[in-house]
């Protein structure tokens, strides 16, 4: 990429599966703190695009195109080297760990134990879940799980965030609150975010009809 721009840039992304072309030259640029929303019917490749950016596209897919993050090309990197956080419909909390351990798992290496615990506590406070360190994730409500999953993704200090219909399993009232919480956290950290949804109310900013 020639631009040294910050943020997440996709250029000329093509994805095909079983000879069927899902995407043919998709491009976009998302500045730090900005959220781009992709909206469209199922099966048009929205989730495949997110999987391509995250590095988790199944091997049955054929894909190409440049993905760069803060000027660094990441589309050839393995998932763990991309620094792209992902949230799905399912919270995917680790069932064998407590809430606090799920969060501690995401904190960076090289911290003292005291600092690690402080970050976990701060994240729980932000999520209005103070004192939940030792709780079993299975005992949490849907909205609580979604907030823990978001905080876990953010504790890993990602440089971009992908949201794959993360609110669709929540009931309407919870949905509005969780949405507000999520975008407040993202804005505060200035992370470029790509959101895929069916619900126009989910979008905090620009909506790109898709495909």
């Amino acid at each position, binding site marked *: 990429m020639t631009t040294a721009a910050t943020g997440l840039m996709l250029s000329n992304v093509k994805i095909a599966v079983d000879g069927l072309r899902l995407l043919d030259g998709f491009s976009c640029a998302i500045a730090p703190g900005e959220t781009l929303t992709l909206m469209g019917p199922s099966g048009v490749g929205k989730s495949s695009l997110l999987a391509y950016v*995250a590095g988790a596209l199944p091997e049955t897919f054929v894909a190409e195109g440049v993905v760069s993050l803060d000027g660094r090309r990441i589309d050839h990197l393995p998932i*763990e080297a991309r*620094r792209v956080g992902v949230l799905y419909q399912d919270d995917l909390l680790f069932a*064998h760990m407590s809430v606090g351990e799920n969060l501690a*798992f995401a904190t*960076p290496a090289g*911290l003292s134990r005291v600092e690690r615990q402080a970050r976990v506590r701060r994240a729980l406070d932000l999520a209005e879940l103070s004192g939940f360190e030792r709780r079993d994730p299975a005992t949490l409500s849907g909205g609580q799980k979604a907030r823990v999953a978001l905080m876990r993704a953010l504790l890993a200090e990602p440089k971009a965030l992908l949201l794959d219909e993360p609110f669709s399993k929540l009931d309407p009232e919870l949905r509005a609150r969780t949405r507000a919480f999520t975008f407040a956290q993202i804005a505060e950290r200035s992370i470029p975010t790509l959101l895929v949804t069916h619900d126009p109310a989910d979008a905090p900013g620009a909506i790109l009809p898709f495909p």
Partner: protein
Amino acid sequence: MTPPRPTSWTLAGLALPAVIGLPLAAGLAGVVAPAFGVHPGLGATRPTFDVLAGLLTDPSFGRALALSVMSGLGASLLAVAAAFGFCALAAPTRWFARVRPALAAGLALPHASFAVGLAFLVAPSGFIARAVSPELTGWREPPDFLLVGDPWAVSLLAALALKETLFLILMITAALGQFPAESLLRTARSLGYRPLRGWLMAVAPQAYRRVRLPVYAVIASSLGSVDLALVLGPSSPPPLAPLLLRWFTDFDPLLQQRAAAGALVLLAATLLAILAWRLGERGIAAFARVRLLDGDRGGGALDRAVGAGAGGIVGLSLAVSTGALIVLALWSVAAAWPWPEALPRGWTLAQWGAAWPTILRLAGDTLLVAALSTAVALALAIAALEARPPRPDAAIDAVVLTPLLLPQAGFLFGVQVMWSALRWDGAIAAVVCTHLLFVGPYVYLALRDPFHALDPRLARSARSLGKSRLVTLLQVKLPLLLRPLLTATAIGLTVSVTLYLPTIIAGAGRVTTLATETIALSAGGDRRLLGVVAITLAALPFAALRLALGLGAWAARRRRGLAA
């Protein structure tokens, strides 16, 4: 149309727990009573500690017990570590699915063939020594040291670990289908974890919970190993289980009683070992919570060592299994093959021709026992699964699965006492019933989860079309479960063909199979005949597995929605 009375289904569902639980209870009673000197038939009804005291003063006992515990626990530790390490290494990659058939084939190699082939490979007079002698070693004749049958049972430990690693990997692979393992790994990776570390921390603990039963079964069968121990273990004294077999088949009634007391000790040692393992699990979990949640994303020296070690053990296991087969095949067609030549001087089918009638008879009896025990196990397992409520029934599971968690030598002597009281000993029927104690649990396990995963609405819609419960089972459920049924059949046949101690005990020397003959011949010097018998033994499970996979694939091509 009158629906079948619920009581008939309930009764049918109890048949499997009954044919397993009753002999098991009789077997345990038949071990406990003589261990305390109680023989109602001989008028001895007062319990004494004389027999146990006699056991404790036996010069072989202490060492035999130590050998069993060391080799059994050591092999289990190594196998669990290697199996999880290998899955951590391979599960995140695309070749994991591709090595599974090789692992399954390696697992299907019966213990007796594996042991004999391994001995042929690594014994001082074996294939590897031949291949490098005298050029590299300078040996003009086989060296005089014990590489197989070493006094500390190290070769037994290694062989057990190599064999059980494959079993555990396949059990872990099955467990990975029961929770979103791939998504969890992806999540860990998107948080920055390297695949191996991410798998071990995010996926392995949840997989371990689901394979706890097979892990404990590995502990029990390693501590109580008889067939591998007879071929590869030390002999003076041997580990406890083969020593018990020696005592039990002795004519001296004092030694037979001592075998019962020893069986009781073996049972206690196994239960203690499993208990200690359970405590160890807690310790490791506590350690992991405190020390491993430090944000380290992996990729360091420790991870590389885990991957290399586990990959090495699995590679060695497959190589040894393949090498064992090759060297058995070589011996079965070898003419003169003097030491230290790497290959036979000539090839001949003479031993096959001479052994042919024996092979046919042995294979016939082996298959008869396997087919009968598998057929009965399938029918009773289906009845048990159909009869019970949709939720897992813990009591039935506990009874059916218990034989897998006990060392065979811990209760089979008592079962044999029951067969002889019924004047059944040495009959094919007694061997089949004894095999059921092991074929039954494995067939049940293979069917249980697919049976419950079947969408209940399918059966309900068949019932609402006016079909009876039996017709629904036969015409809807079982055809949908064709592939799990084929797998269960292959597993049942393989388990039965492989069983050594249950066959030799219940057969009372009158029913011999390829497995018992392989072990019997391994003590003698006729390597050619041993090669012929052991390779035939190895061929049967392979054939069963191939047939099951082939039929399953054929069925899946015709109906793509069948349960996998």
